[in-house]
């Protein structure tokens, strides 16, 4: 992809520092709905940051604020050191890929991609080369003369991307850009997107409600809830150390066991389950004994043993019976009935691993550091 | 002037309807009675009469058809019908649906030029000394007269304009004027221009078309609008959009009755008449001729003249009309105006219309 180098699209000189800062943005509407409640976020240059949250949480409003289609009631937006809070959209120098692509139906693919360049009064000859290079980047050289409606969904998505990056904006916004594509295609487009982002050293704010997509693509994920960012960090950090039940529940799959905090201190906690059994874990926040808590256990952290061959420890061992077996290809998922609560365990299939059938008695074991104790909200 | 505008005149019932309504309130019980009629006009059976509809037909119903049926014993079947092609078609296919019809005299001339569509009138039935020769035609009898007159706003001038020369006098009588449009069924009227230019009324025909247009050129810019319907000519005066204009007398009568500051000058008025005709080959020819004769009876004509602002053709009708009513009618002003030469108008129609169309766009 030597063309990228010609364009100056190259990622050779990795930019450092912060590209975008959102500082305590608020926004409410005349009908009383509050979309943003002091949302703050910092996006490092050259990274993909995803805004992940349920619908109505404020992630699309945030994106509109960044693009300039909506104005915050208070707070500021800084792009590359410049306060753009009051800058009209066309002067913000931000590329955006819309959920429905928003390709101009009356213009050819070429004219669509050339549009931002023409708006910037670039020389005609320049436009020709730059557009062709951008189309080459998304592997659409052959369709420049076609109209958007003559393209497949995936092709349209790539045109939208080419149009959003052709003028080398400071920042690229993507609003659930893969939502309309089927699963198969989505995977390959995600990889493609990641490759392009690295290659061109793009800074991307990516809105999605698909947690898998967010984890796959993002350098950082910001979880949005109720018009605020409740936690932001690298996908692995968020997965391993969610700060709330909401974040834990939203990112990845989780088992929750309800109970009462028996003892707490120095990050450790002992929880009494309703049936009297006790579990040890890490506490995610300072809490005092007697409080109602939830214990988070990720399915892959649960070990499943044959009931007769218990690991010989008395900590965090739970006896139960296999209730359901879900075969996932490389792994198998067991739903285990613990005489009341149910837990899901995911076990990777190895030659050595024992397999179980419905009705088999088993014991589950989990290490205390993999049990995260939250106050029940 | 080809007189085919009467239907339009009547169709816009607003102003005319007002006349009739007011007239009826005041005068319905003043309608003169028709005396006993000679036996030769009595008969039996039916008669199919085509009239022009609207207010005139309403007046005819009351003034003419009612006594005709009572006195002659002939039943009238009335239809609204006015179209030369329809008369032609009925005669040509020998499928007569109207025994008798009303038609502008000018139109009857047009029809006769095209062929023998009409029966000659049986004057042996008509005993009407007051019916002057000019209304007695071989194939038709004229029964009402209409005048085209000059109108003015009485509140616009210190002294009232009288002649067409006054209409042309922009210094003494300044202000916007209206004129007939010569389109949409309104005939082209060149005679006011010639009268204004000094041509005596009895020397008008043949019209000097070039001279007329030269005269019109002089006031072109003061004629702000050209009316295409009778209602419009009255509205323009009633609303004071124009201070001088031309109009059919029937349109201005209602304005006078409403006491609006509008005046009429009969000086140089142009008279045309409407006729009764009998369709050639009708099986009901006897009844049709009786009807035509009945319509010439002075009392019958007077009844009609009480109900609508049209003049009579039997001068004896004047004896049965109150003087204030008589003043409203063309018949009282015949000496001040002139009768259009319908044959000249017919023969020069195309040429005049063409020249008018060219002038009006220039």
């Amino acid at each position: 992809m030597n063309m990228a180098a010609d364009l100056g699209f190259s990622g050779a000189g990795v930019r450092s520092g912060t590209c975008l800062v959102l500082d305590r943005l608020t926004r409410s509407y005349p009908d009383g709905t509050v979309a943003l409640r002091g949302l703050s976020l910092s996006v490092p240059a050259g990274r993909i940051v995803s805004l992940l949250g349920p619908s109505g949480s404020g992630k699309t409003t945030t994106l509109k604020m960044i693009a300039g289609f909506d104005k915050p009631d208070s707070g500021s937006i800084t792009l590359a050191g410049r306060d753009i809070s009051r800058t009209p959209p066309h002067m913000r120098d931000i590329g955006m890929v819309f959920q429905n692509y928003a390709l101009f139906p009356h213009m050819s693919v070429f004219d669509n991609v050339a549009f931002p360049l023409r708006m910037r009064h670039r020389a005609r000859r320049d436009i020709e080369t730059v557009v062709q290079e951008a189309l080459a980047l998304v592997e659409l050289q052959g369709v420049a003369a076609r109209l958007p409606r003559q393209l497949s969904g995936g092709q349209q998505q790539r045109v939208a991307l080419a149009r959003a990056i052709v003028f080398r904006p400071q920042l690229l916004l993507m609003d659930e850009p893969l939502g309309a594509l089927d699963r198969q295609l989505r995977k390959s487009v995600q990889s493609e997107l990641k490759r392009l982002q690295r290659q061109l050293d793009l800074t991307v704010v990516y809105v999605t409600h698909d947690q898998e997509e967010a984890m796959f693509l993002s350098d950082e994920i910001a979880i949005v809830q109720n018009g605020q960012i409740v936690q932001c960090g690298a996908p692995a950090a968020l997965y391993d150390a969610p700060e709330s039940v909401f974040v834990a529940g939203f990112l990845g799959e989780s088992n929750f066991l309800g109970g009462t905090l028996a003892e707490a201190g120095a990050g450790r906690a002992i929880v009494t389950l309703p049936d009297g059994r006790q579990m040890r874990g890490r506490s995610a926040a300072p809490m005092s004994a007697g409080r109602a808590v939830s214990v988070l256990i990720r399915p892959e952290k649960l070990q499943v043993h044959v009931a007769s061959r218990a690991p010989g420890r008395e900590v965090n061992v739970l006896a139960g019976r296999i209730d359901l077996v879900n075969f996932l290809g490389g792994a198998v998922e067991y739903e285990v009935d613990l005489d009341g609560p149910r837990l899901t365990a995911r076990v990777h299939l190895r030659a050595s691993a024992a397999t179980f059938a419905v009705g088999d008695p088993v014991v589950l074991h989990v290490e205390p550091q993999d049990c995260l104790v939250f106050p029940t909200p | 002037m080809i007189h085919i505008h009467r239907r339009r005149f009547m169709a816009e019932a607003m102003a005319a309807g007002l006349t009739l309504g007011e007239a009826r309130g005041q005068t319905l019980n003043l309608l003169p009675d028709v005396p006993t009629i000679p036996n030769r006009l009595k008969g039996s059976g039916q008669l199919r009469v085509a009239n022009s509809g609207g207010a005139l037909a309403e007046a005819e119903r009351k003034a003419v058809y009612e006594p005709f049926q009572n006195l002659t014993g002939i039943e009238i079947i009335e239809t609204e019908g006015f179209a030369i092609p329809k008369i032609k078609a009925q005669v040509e296919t020998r499928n007569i649906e109207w025994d008798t019809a009303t038609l502008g005299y000018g139109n009857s001339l047009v029809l006769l030029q095209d062929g023998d569509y009409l029966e000659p009138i049986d004057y042996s039935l008509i005993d009407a000394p007051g019916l002057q020769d000019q209304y007695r035609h071989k194939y038709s009898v004229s029964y009402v007269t209409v005048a085209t007159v000059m109108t003015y706003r009485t509140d616009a001038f210190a002294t009232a304009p009288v002649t067409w020369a006054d209409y042309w006098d922009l210094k003494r009588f300044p202000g916007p004027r209206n004129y007939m449009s010569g389109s949409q069924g309104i005939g082209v009227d060149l005679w006011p221009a010639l009268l204004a230019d000094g041509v005596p009324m009895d020397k008008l025909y043949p019209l000097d078309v070039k001279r007329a247009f030269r005269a019109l050129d002089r006031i072109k810019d003061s004629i702000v609008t050209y009316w295409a319907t009778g209602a419009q000519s009255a509205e323009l005066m009633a609303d004071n959009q124009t201070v001088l204009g031309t109009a059919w007398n029937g349109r201005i009568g209602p304005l006078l009755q409403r006491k609006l500051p509008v005046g009429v000058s009969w000086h140089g008025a142009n008279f045309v008449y409407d006729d009764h005709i009998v369709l050639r080959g009708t099986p009901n020819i006897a009844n049709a001729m009786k009807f035509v004769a009945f319509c010439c009876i002075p009392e019958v004509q007077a009844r009609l003249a009480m109900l609508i602002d049209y003049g009579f053709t039997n001068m004896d009708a004047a004896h049965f009309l109150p003087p204030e009513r008589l003043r409203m009618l063309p018949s009282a002003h015949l000496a001040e105006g002139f009768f259009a030469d319908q044959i000249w108008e017919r023969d020069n129609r195309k040429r005049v219309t063409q020249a008018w169309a060219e002038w009006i766009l220039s």
Partner: protein
Amino acid sequence: MMDVALAGGTAQPVPSQRLFSGAGLLALPLIVLLAVVYVCPVGVMLADSFTDPQPGLQQYQRMIEHPVYLQVLARTFRLAVVVTAATAICGFPVAYYCTIARPAVARIALGLLFVPFWASTVVRTYALMVILGRTGILNGALLWAGLISRPTQFLFHTATVQLAMVQILLPFFVLPVYAGLRTIDLSLLSAAEGLGAPPWQVFRRIYLPLSLPGLFTGALIVFVFCFGFFITPTLLGGRRDVTIAMVIMAQFEGQLDWGFGAALSTVLLACTLVAVLMMLRVAKQDSNR
């Protein structure tokens, strides 16, 4: 879209096509009605123009010998063009406003636009006379304000006719344009803006081209309607505001010259058809661009 759908229907008749032929049957009464009340009279008119009073081209010859009739046609054409353009300029913002206003507000705005429809053209024309006349509201106001010392002649000018026609034809323009504008995806405007287009460019490069189909429909309706106008020019116009419809009426009603009336009508029909086809062609080229 249509082409694709039709191309998709291969040898096997698909249900939707069968449904369509059924729909064609439902349209039969209308087709018959049109044939009887429209196609037949037009055919008779065409024939009349060549046969009345004698077979031959003399009626058309007359039109060439006396250029006044073609002059009127040209004037009518000019009137139609001016009125169409003015209606478009006045109507487009209204249609646009209705698309961006809240639905309730848009409904009220569109409703108000149609209030004048409850009155006939004659009444609406007279209403304008009440406003613009010598003793009308406008003159009264200007006199009262001391801006003029004598009533101004606002009526009986070409501009008066144009104003009235724009006012009468506006709804016929706004409705199709509104329908067209509503189909425009507003995110395209945001997209254009985000890509660096200032508002004027967003309008010129995105909104206007996308609204052209609706604009053409509206303009076509107004344009064709203009040719049939005679009441308004008669009541409000001056000497030169003679439209071809008035001249044709004069032939049928006044001159009883049906052959020439038919010939004029035929020429008018031909000119209108040519104009409409040209407009459609332009519209098509534009949407293919």
